[in-house]
């Protein structure tokens, strides 16, 4: 069975380590915050100028001066700090964030990513995504393995305008956990109940399949 959104977040959360500073993109990446393993501490960075993002506020604690990069009202945890956008991207571009999680339209076997623009549709802008992918030491892309028409999103070469070139090394899709190196996709884990054949079928780019592909453990 393909992973649910919550399971995707859960698998991504296994990439966390105690003491990590983490930037979570909009959508599924945001859900990762709900699956931080017990006893582990991570600090969430929001690129609009907050380190130490907390949960959504209660009705009484809503503060229009306190939002996240998705423009949602949030709270701040103990030990949080606020800073300017320039200082925020000093953290990001300077490689100080330990893990970045974001979605994508396409990733290719060179590690290039397309996530911000579909020509012909309206361009909304890249926001902070280009800075994040260009600079993060450790990026996990999480997305469905194929689009709604069943076409692979793990390609030989991205067809959409890039967000970043040769920067992605890890993908958690709804079918598999895949690493990228030597200009190839490497199948590391499969979603519970998903066959290697299905993953191979839905991966357009070159995929290295080891003899034994363990199922993800949650």
């Amino acid at each position, binding site marked *: 069975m393909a992973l649910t959104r919550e399971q995707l977040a859960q698998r991504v959360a296994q990439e966390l380590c105690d003491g990590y500073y983490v930037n979570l993109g909009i959508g599924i990446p945001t859900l990762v915050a709900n699956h931080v393993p017990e006893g582990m501490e991570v600090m969430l960075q*929001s*690129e*609009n*100028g*907050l380190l130490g993002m907390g*949960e*959504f*506020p*209660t*009705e009484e604690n*809503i*503060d*229009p*001066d*306190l*939002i*996240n990069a*998705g*423009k*949602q*009202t*949030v709270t*701040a945890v103990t030990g949080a700090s*606020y*800073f*300017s*956008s*320039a200082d*925020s*991207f000093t953290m*990001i*571009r300077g490689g100080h964030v330990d893990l970045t999680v974001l979605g994508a339209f396409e990733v290719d076997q060179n590690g*290039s990513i397309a996530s911000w*623009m579909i020509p012909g549709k*309206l*361009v*909304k*802008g*890249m*926001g*902070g*995504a*280009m*800075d994040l992918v*260009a*600079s993060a030491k450790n990026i996990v892309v999480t997305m469905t393995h194929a689009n709604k028409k069943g076409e692979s999103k793990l390609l030989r070469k991205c067809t959409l*305008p*890039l*967000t*970043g*070139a*040769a920067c992605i090394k890890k993908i958690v899709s709804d079918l598999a956990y895949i690493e990228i190196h030597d200009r190839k996709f490497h199948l590391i884990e499969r979603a519970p109940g998903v066959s290697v054949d299905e993953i191979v079928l839905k991966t357009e780019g070159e995929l290295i399949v080891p003899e034994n592909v363990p199922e993800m453990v949650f």
Partner: protein
Amino acid sequence: MQGFNKVVLSYDEALDGLTNNMTIMVGGFGLCGIPEGLIGKIKCMGVRELTCISNNAGVDGFGLGILLEEQQIKKMIASYVGENSLFEKQLLSGELAVELTPQGTLAEKMRAGGAGIPAFFTPSGYGTPIAKGKETREYNGKMHVLEEALTADFSLVKAWKADTMGNLVFRKTAMNFNPMAATAGRITVVEVEEIVRAGELDPNHIHTPGIYVNRVIKGSFEKRIEKLTVTK
């Protein structure tokens, strides 16, 4: 003698000198930390053909969206403009030009403009459409793009508190692009929630020293929330 008293009492005074075809830089992230009254005043003034540098373009009917409604903006330099259907219409019809810039690069271009750094290399956008026509260079085994600084005729800034000398303090994530905008305007106008006497702000914790600030006006703010999310 006026000395260092930066306080003005009317929006007329606050935006005196702003004319057609000028470049304005506006602080804010989404609708958070935007100089609401100054934007409203620009609408009333009816100045046109503005180039506007701001991370976002507001929403329909609020923030910079109201200047789009009046077609006062000819060019927008921003990182994300997705919340505004009017923006889309004007963009597709060719009434509006847009220069999309990665958010971190935009923040750095504004800082550089204020800091006398005319250009810098950044890894952001290398290998993407953003780098088209720009000089690239390898440093530390990684490719970078040369980006140029941004400055403006007027910078419009929203701060929490100012003292009469123009020293500013921002509040929480309403800081965002405001400190850089404050440094990069030929004339920097700041709209604040509260004006205090000089000496009341802790000199150790002033976010923007008054040297960058030309005019301070006390505004009143709606602080509209773009995406209200609560924990049940």
